[in-house]
């Protein structure tokens, strides 16, 4: 089984594609792969509890680790103590760690 790092930079409220990228994360996890979905830039917007965050929380229940870039959250005034269920704030360092680990890395 493989390990994946999926980086979501696009705004779920703006781009239809984001839901498909999230679904890709879920389907890789269903296949038994280890998957991290790392939200960065406007990709963190649904981490604030909202109409889109339930779908994000569902990913964590499907076995995807969902992390949100601390800087992107702070930049947008999204409080880390009030994130969508299952989503964790994280330093960007995790991306370097997981690249160094050799994960297949896809940026959306």
């Amino acid at each position, binding site marked *: 089984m493989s390990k994946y790092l999926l*980086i979501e*930079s*696009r705004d779920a409220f703006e781009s239809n594609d984001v839901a498909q990228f999230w679904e890709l994360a879920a389907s890789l996890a269903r296949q038994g792969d280890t998957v991290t979905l790392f939200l*960065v*830039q*406007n990709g963190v917007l649904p981490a604030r509890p909202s109409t889109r965050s339930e779908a994000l929380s569902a990913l964590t229940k499907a076995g995807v680790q969902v992390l949100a870039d601390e*800087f992107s959250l702070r930049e947008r005034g999204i409080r880390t103590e009030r994130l969508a269920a299952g989503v964790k704030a994280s330093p*960007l*360092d995790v*991306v*370097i760690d997981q*690249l*160094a680990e*050799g*994960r297949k*890395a896809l*940026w959306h």
Partner: protein
Amino acid sequence: MADKKSLTFVLMDPPFENPRTTTALRLIDLAVRRGHDVNVFAYEGAVYVAFAKQTPHANAVHGRDVEQEDHPIPKDWVAAILAEGVKSGSKIDWVQCGLCVDERGAGECVEGPRRGSPADLLKFAETSDNTLVIPTK
């Protein structure tokens, strides 16, 4: 460094147009600070990230002169990252896609980056531990 790796980053965006440039440089900076060797393949508009002729300016709307505004100039960020590499022991190989440089007239860049081609990207991909493509949209 305990577990030194070689990481390749492919950039596509010119500066000042979207947040991908800043995030890409944040990642490269982090990798360099950790002492990893870093390859950068600057493709398409990203050849402007290290463009030597970027110049700071004052900002009347902000009410700041040039010095006060201290406007980010990405080529200086690139130069600073390259300097950090010398301190951290990171080997940094920054390649500007040659045809992309030509068609954009972006031939003048800060010291450090070199002209290259897709063959360099292939070599980076084959010889480094991992590659992250940061695409444009």
